[in-house]
C-alpha cells in the first residue's frame, strides 16, 4: 500500500515524479523519495508529506527516475526507511510496493556475504540481490533476483549511466503509460492521466524493460505483447477544483456517479450469471463490506435469495463451504484480502463476479466477469461516491432478480441524493464535535448504514463511534450512554418503526442526546428527539442512499469543525494492497 512512479523520456524527471507522487499520496503518505539518473545516480528521501519536503528534491537532475510514497509496513516512517533504496555502492536504486515475506532470511544470507544494510525495510534485500547479479545488464540482474523473492511486489529499478527502468510485478499493481518517446510507470493510472491516455496493464510475473524509445515485456523468459488500452478518465476528475477537500467534491458528485452506474446497465453475460445464481456470497473489506451487508438485507427481503457476506481478511484463512455465485466488491480492484479470497473461491469452482471502480485492475483479471461502477477516480481516503456507486451496482442486481420492479425507483434515486446534499447538518455537527464517543443505530438495512456512518465518523473525525443494531444496544452498550454520548438513530417507516421509536425513548431516558434521521414530515419522531434530520419519504432503496449521504455530511462537517485533515486521515491509506 505504497505508491510508485517511474519516468523515462526527454523531460526533466523530477517534476514529473513529484507531481505523480502527489496524485498517489492517497495510497500512503508517511514518507516519500525519488531517485534520478543524470550525470550520476542521485537520491532524495524524506519522512513526512510530499508538499512539505518537495523543495529539497528540486536539485535532482536527469530524465530518468523513480519515486515512491510510503505507508510503512516494515520499519517506522523515517528518512532512512523511505524508498528508494540503494545497493552497497550506490549505483542501483529500487522502489517497491508490496511485502517480501522471506526478507529476514534473505537479509541474513546477504549480511553473511558482506552486504551492508542501512534500513529496516524488506525492500532493501531486493536491491542487494540485484547488486549481486548485476554485471552490466540490469534486466538480467532483476530477472535473476525475482525467483528468490516470496510475497507481493511491484518493483522499479534504475542503474547509473543508463536511461532505463526495469519494472516487475507480482500481486501488486503496476501500470505503464505510453507517451511520445517517453514511458511512465505508476501504481495506478491517476499520475498518467495528464500525460497520456494509452496504458498497458502488466500481468503478474511480467518484467518490462523500459527505455525512451523501446518497451519490451517478458513473461517466463519469453517476450510477450500486452494490449495498449485507452483510458476514459480525464485529469479534471482528479483535481480538487475550488472545493476545500476531495471528500466534499466526491460527496457532491454522488448523484452523477449513481446515475451513471445505473445507466451503464448490466451486460448480458453478467445478467445471465446473476439470474442463474441460487445463492450469492459476497466478499469485501471496510466500506465495501458495509455495502454487501446492505445488499444482504435488501436482497433477502426483496428478491428472496439467500445471501452470505464475508470479510476478505477472514475468508482467506477460514474458508466457509462454498457454492453459488461469489461476488468480490472492491473500489480499487487491488484490495489484497478480497483478491486472495476471490482466488480461493475460484479453486472451489464457483462462478466469480467483481464489482469495482477501476477498469483493468487486478480483480477484473482474476474474476470471471466484471460489473464496473462508474464513480470515476476517488481520491479522498474515506470512500463516499464509490460507496453509493457500489450500492448502485448492487441495487441493479436486486432489480434484475426482481424483473425490473425497481426501474423507476433507481432511475430517479439520484434526485433524492441531490436533495439531501442541500441539508444543513450544523446542529448535529455541534453535538458530535463536542463528543468523545458516539453511537450510530439502525435496524434492518439501516443497521449497516449506521455501521458505515460510524466508520466515516471514526476515520476522518477521530471521534470514537460504534455502529449497532438498535435492539442490541440494550445488551451491554447501554452502560456507556451519558448526556455527553450522542446517539444517531435512523428511524424510517416500516415494520421496525414502532420498536425503533421505543428504543429511542429508552435512550432518551438515559439522557443521551439523540439525532434522528426520519422521513420528512414525521412530526411524532421530531418531537421525541433532540435533533431531527428529515430525509425524503421515498422507497426503501432510496432511503438507504439518502440516509448514508446525510451521515457522510455529518462526518465530514464534524471533521472540519475539529480541524482534521479530511483527505489524509492519520494511519490510513486508500487501497490496502497488503494483507
Amino acid at each position: 500500500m505504497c505508491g510508485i512512479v517511474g519516468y523515462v523520456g526527454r523531460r526533466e524527471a523530477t517534476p514529473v515524479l513529484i507531481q505523480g507522487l502527489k496524485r498517489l499520496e492517497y495510497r500512503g503518505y508517511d514518507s516519500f523519495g525519488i531517485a534520478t539518473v543524470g550525470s550520476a545516480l542521485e537520491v532524495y528521501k524524506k519522512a513526512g508529506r510530499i508538499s512539505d519536503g518537495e523543495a529539497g528534491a528540486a536539485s535532482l537532475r536527469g530524465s530518468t527516475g523513480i519515486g515512491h510514497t510510503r505507508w510503512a509496513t516494515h520499519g517506522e516512517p523515517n528518512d532512512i526507511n523511505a524508498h528508494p533504496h540503494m545497493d552497497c555502492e550506490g549505483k542501483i536504486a529500487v522502489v517497491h510496493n508490496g511485502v517480501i515475506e522471506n526478507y529476514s532470511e534473505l537479509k541474513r544470507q546477504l549480511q553473511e556475504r558482506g552486504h551492508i544494510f542501512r534500513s529496516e525495510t524488506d525492500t532493501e534485500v531486493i536491491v542487494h540481490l540485484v547488486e549481486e547479479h548485476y554485471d552490466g545488464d540490469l534486466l538480467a540482474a532483476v530477472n535473476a533476483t525475482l525467483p528468490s523473492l516470496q510475497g507481493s511486489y511491484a518493483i522499479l529499478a534504475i542503474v547509473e549511466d543508463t536511461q532505463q527502468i526495469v519494472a516487475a510485478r507480482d500481486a501488486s499493481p503496476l501500470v505503464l503509460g505510453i507517451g511520445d518517446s517517453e514511458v511512465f510507470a505508476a501504481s495506478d493510472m491517476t499520475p498518467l492521466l495528464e500525460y497520456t491516455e494509452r496504458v498497458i496493464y502488466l500481468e503478474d510475473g511480467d518484467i518490462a524493460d523500459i527505455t525512451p524509445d523501446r518497451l519490451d515485456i517478458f513473461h517466463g523468459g519469453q517476450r510477450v505483447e500486452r494490449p495498449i488500452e485507452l483510458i476514459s478518465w480525464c485529469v479534471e476528475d482528479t483535481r480538487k477544483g475550488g472545493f476545500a477537500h476531495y471528500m466534499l467534491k466526491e460527496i457532491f458528485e454522488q448523484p452523477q456517479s449513481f446515475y451513471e452506474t445505473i445507466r451503464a446497465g448490466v451486460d448480458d453475460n453478467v445478467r445471465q450469471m446473476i439470474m442463474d445464481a441460487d445463492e450469492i456470497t459476497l466478499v469485501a473489506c471496510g466500506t465495501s463490506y458495509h455495502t454487501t451487508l446492505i445488499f444482504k438485507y435488501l436482497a433477502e427481503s426483496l428478491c428472496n435469495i439467500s445471501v452470505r457476506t464475508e470479510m476478505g481478511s477472514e475468508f482467506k484463512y477460514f474458508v466457509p463451504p462454498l457454492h453459488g455465485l461469489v461476488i468480490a466488491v472492491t473500489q480499487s480492484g487491488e484490495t489484497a484480502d478480497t483478491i486472495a479470497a476471490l482466488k480461493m473461491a475460484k479453486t472451489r469452482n464457483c462462478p466469480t463476479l467483481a464489482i469495482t471502480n477501476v477498469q483493468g485492475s487486478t480483480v477484473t483479471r482474476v474474476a470471471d466477469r466484471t460489473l464496473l461502477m462508474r464513480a470515476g477516480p476517488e481520491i479522498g481516503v474515506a470512500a463516499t461516491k464509490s460507496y453509493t456507486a457500489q450500492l448502485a451496482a448492487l441495487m441493479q442486481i436486486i432489480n434484475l432478480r426482481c424483473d425490473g420492479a425497481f426501474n423507476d425507483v433507481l432511475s430517479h434515486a439520484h434526485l433524492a441524493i441531490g436533495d439531501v446534499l442541500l441539508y444543513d447538518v450544523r446542529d448535529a455537527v455541534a453535538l458530535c464535535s463536542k463528543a468523545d464517543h458516539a453511537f450510530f443505530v439502525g435496524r434492518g438495512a439501516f443497521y449497516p448504514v449506521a455501521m458505515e456512518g460510524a466508520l466515516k465518523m471514526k476515520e476522518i473525525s477521530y471521534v470514537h463511534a460504534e455502529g449497532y443494531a438498535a435492539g442490541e444496544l440494550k445488551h451491554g452498550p447501554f452502560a456507556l450512554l451519558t448526556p455527553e454520548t450522542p446517539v444517531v438513530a435512523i428511524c424510517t417507516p416500516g415494520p421496525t418503526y414502532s420498536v425503533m421509536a421505543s428504543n429511542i425513548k429508552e435512550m432518551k431516558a438515559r439522557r443521551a442526546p439523540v439525532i434522528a434521521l426520519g422521513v420528512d414530515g414525521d412530526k411524532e419522531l421530531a418531537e421525541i428527539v433532540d435533533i431531527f434530520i428529515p430525509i425524503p419519504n421515498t422507497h426503501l432503496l432510496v432511503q438507504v442512499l439518502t440516509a448514508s449521504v446525510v451521515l457522510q455530511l455529518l462526518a465530514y462537517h464534524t471533521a472540519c469543525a475539529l480541524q482534521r485533515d479530511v483527505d489524509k486521515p492519520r494511519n490510513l491509506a486508500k487501497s490496502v494492497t497488503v494483507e
Partner: protein
Amino acid sequence: MMQAVILAAGEGSRLRPLTRSKPKAMIPVANRPIIEYVIDALLENGIRDIVVVVGYRKEHVIRYLNKLDAPVQVVVQERQLGTADALRAAESEITDDFLVLPGDNYINAESIARIKKERNAMLVAEHPSPSNFGVVVIRNGLVREVIEKPEDAPTFTVSTGICSFTPDIFPYLLTNEIPDALSAMIASGRRIRAIPADDWQDAIYPWDLLKLNSRMLRGITPEIGGKVDASVIRRGVVRIGAGTTVGPNTVIYGPVTIGRDCNIGANTVIMPDSSIGDRVVLEPFTYVADSIIMDDVTVGSHSRIVSAVFGQGCILADHTTTYPSASFMEVGDRVLKEEFGAVLGDGVRAAPFTTFKNCIVGNGVTIEEGKTLVGLIEDGARVI
C-alpha cells in the same frame, strides 16, 4: 493582462422557487447556465484570467466550473453581504486592470470589446422598467450618479453591473455595494465613463427566463446525437444530445434544444423556443411550446405545455395543461401582472388532469387529481 471577476455568489431570490438548489447564475437557459454565456463572451475577447466569486450553493457552481475547458479561479464569499463584499473576496487574486461582471445576466462579446479598452468605465443599457435596476444619470459621457432601484426613475438608462476598474478601487469599497464605491470615486473627482452595451439581457422574475430562453435559442447550432426515428419531422435549428431517443412521428420545429439521455415519446410535438434538459421523459402525444423544462422532469402523455418553466425533477402525470393568461400576483413586495403559463419549482408532483393557469408553484408541492391552480403556491404544500 486584463482580468475578469464574475460575481456568482448571490441567490437571485426574485427567481424563487427556481433557486432552491442553485444560484441564479446556474439557471439553464437554452440548456446552458447563464454564467456560461458570460465566460464565453470573455474568452472571445481573449480574457482568460477569470476569477469567479461563489457563495450560495457554491458546491454546485464549483462542480460545474471544474468541468469547463477553460480554467477559472474560484474564491468563496462566506456570507452574501453584497457586490462590493464579493469583490473584496477576490482582492487577493487581482494584480491588474480588471472587469467586474454579474454572472447571472447575459452579455455578448461585442459589449465586452467596447468596455475592455477603458479604465474606470461602466456598461449601461436602456430598459423599459428601469426601477428594477440601478438607474444611471449620465452627463457628457460620464457617470454622474447611480440611483439604486428608485420608485420613479429619471431616465431609462440602467447599469448592467459590468464595470472596468483599476486595482486602486479597493480603498473605495467602504460599504457592501459597488454603486456606493462608484459614488465615492465620482465624489473624489475620478472619471467613470458610461459606455452603451451592445446586447445585454437580464431575467428578474421567473417568467423573464422565457424571453431570455427564446433569445438564446437563436444562437444554437444544429447537432443530432442519440437515436432519432426516421419518421421524425424536424424544421429549423434542432439540437439533440447524446443518448436521447426520439420516437416515431414526433414533430420538432426549431429552435429547440434537447439534452442528453432524454426519452421523447412517439407522436409528440415540440414547437419553437423550447429547451429541454437532460434525462427528461416526454410521454407520447404531448405538446410543448415556448418552455424551459429542466433536468429529470417527466411529463405524462396528452399534456399541453405552453409558456412554462419546470424546475428539475418534476413528475407530472398525463393530461397536464399549462394555460397562459395574466392575473395579479404578489411577488416579494410588489404586485405584478404578467402573461405566462406556469413556473414550477424543483420536484413538483402532479396527478393526472392538473391545469396550471398563470401560476407559480413552490418546490416539492404535491397536487392531487384534476385541480386547476392559479397564483402562488408555497414550497412543500399539498393541494387536495
